[in-house]
């Protein structure tokens, strides 16, 4: 056989395509982060390092609006992530441990379908649904919508983790005089914990930065951070937006990092 060079680096254009992808993905984030420390009023001229726009976020003319929006965003994210993780954990237990029940494949499809449906469709549908049942738009509508669309995000890491846990562990626990409930709390839950935590963090992030659905189902005057930022940007981009975006970005990075290490961590070693 002829020598086959399967080293991907040897392909023509490998380096340029890679660099282009990285640039398109990360250059904007990098620029926003750098310019959030700009001392200038302008968003394009660099005039030296300063934290004035961070101060502006907390004390400036728009600070009150951002504070309320941040409060809404974080409380909604925490409640939605908690609720959706709980539901997803139960769903995963039923799906993975429920044997081969009828409509199992259908159930799995129904749980994960929202990941593939265009978000705008979900947004419009949710809005119509709330209108139809006469649910006044506001904080609660955002919360309910977030709980719903966070479920598949929480479900995936939890069920992936659970599929790796043999059911003989629970059988062994019950064989050793544990009730079904004790087998779940003492054996299955601790083994699932990394999946549950990473499902929670994923749901939290997804809720925190959701814009489209939130924008549709929020009532007048109720803002989350993404909708508040969008509102501000409509009146022109000011450097304080870059500061607030950078802060959101750091929250995301921290969450994703925790999620990564938790899913890697193993309480069995």
């Amino acid at each position, binding site marked *: 056989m002829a020598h086959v060079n399967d080293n991907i680096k040897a392909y023509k254009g490998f380096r340029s395509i890679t660099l282009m992808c990285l640039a398109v993905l990360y250059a904007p984030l990098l620029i926003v982060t750098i310019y959030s420390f700009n001392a200038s009023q302008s968003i394009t001229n660099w005039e030296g390092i300063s934290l004035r726009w961070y101060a502006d976020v907390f004390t400036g003319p728009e600070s009150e609006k951002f504070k309320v929006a941040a409060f809404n965003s974080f409380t909604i994210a925490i409640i939605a992530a908690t609720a959706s993780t709980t539901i997803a954990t139960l769903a995963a237990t039923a799906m993975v441990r429920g044997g081969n029940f009828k409509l199992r494949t259908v159930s799995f499809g129904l749980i994960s379908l929202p990941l593939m449906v265009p978000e705008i469709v979900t947004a419009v549908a949710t809005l119509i649904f709330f209108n139809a049942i006469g649910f006044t738009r506001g904080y609660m509508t955002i919360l309910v919508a977030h709980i719903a669309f966070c479920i598949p995000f929480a479900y995936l890491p939890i069920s992936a983790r659970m599929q790796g846990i*043999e059911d*003989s*562990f629970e*059988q*062994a*626990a*019950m*064989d*050793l*005089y*544990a*009730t*079904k409930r*004790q087998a779940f709390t*003492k*054996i299955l839950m*601790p*083994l699932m914990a990394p999946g549950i935590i990473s499902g929670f963090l994923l749901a939290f992030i997804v809720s925190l930065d959701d814009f489209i659905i939130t924008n549709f189902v929020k009532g007048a005057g109720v803002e989350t951070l993404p909708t508040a930022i969008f509102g501000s940007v409509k009146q022109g981009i000011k450097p304080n937006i870059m500061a607030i975006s950078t802060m959101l970005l750091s929250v995301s990075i921290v969450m994703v990092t925790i999620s990564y290490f938790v899913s890697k961590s193993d*309480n*069995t*070693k």
Partner: protein
Amino acid sequence: MPSNKTDAIDVRNAVKRYGDFTALKRISLTIKDNEFFTLLGPSGCGKTTLLRMIAGFEDVTEGEILLYGDEIEKLPPHQRPVNTVFQNYALFPHMTILDNVAFGLEMRGKSKADARKRAGEMLELVQLSQFAARKPSQLSGGQQQRVALARALAPQPKVLLLDEPLSALDLKLRKAMQLELKHLQRETGITFIFVTHDQEEALTMSDRIAVMSAGEMQQLGTPTEIYEQPRNMFVADFIGETNLLEVSVDQVMNGRATCHLGGGHALTCNSVDGIGEGAKVHMSVRPERLFMSDAPVEAESLKGRVAENIFVGTDISTLVDLAEGPQFIVRTSNSDRGNKRIFEPGSEIFVNMELGAGRLLMD
């Protein structure tokens, strides 16, 4: 039937069906107190299903299971005073070895301190005290096996169920564990029900063996009975190596049956109830109960030609083609070479059968 409080397990007409498939076809058997009992059979014979029914992981479709006289077949697993050693051990990976062993005791209501104390003693019994603080993944397969054993024995179950616990170990370790299991059973006085597909393992360890196939019990008996007096073709073939010969029974008299096989060769063996004159049945002859000679030593010596000698360590197996008949395997122990001869391939020889070596088989 009256319930017997002294029998460890009494399985009565147990049937297990999965939809249209019948995994167990009306099994009845009694396992005595303090017995090392083995369920032996090929995969899919229903032995593990029966074990899991005793443990409570499978429903009983029909029939009853009694544990020292009490019906248990409807109790959930955690209410049955039996413990299981799982095939893959199923040690809780997030707990230390000590906590694993203490788990059953704690679930039974012992205080954490008491449970750990007793767990420590169990680990001593299986010589793993120094590993108490480790996690299961830090132990070797053999060590995990012993932890699983300690964990299942710690709550002092009335019956210990072992589901092919040695199958993942290498040969040497398996042999050592066989002895250790046997000693543990004697020391603790707990009834062991052991499931295996390895007939040698079953013969080595068991007080009694139930040979199973296709959801039915083929024979129940001591290892010697199972090996020397197999009831049917399946048992004779499954346990050990044997020569299975198609024979016709010519005469039954005074407990002896005179038979002939193809090529006009005649053979005499002990008669079996239910097999009369004219029956066409199979005869089983263990290869180690045959010997070869260069001249006929009795009227029933079978003429043949040596095809091949196979060296198997302690023995030599010789394949002999009978004149107008089947091929025989003759096994000669290397320690017996003074009395018994080995012939070169191609030699014309006679195969002789020890008295009572042939066994007629039902079906």
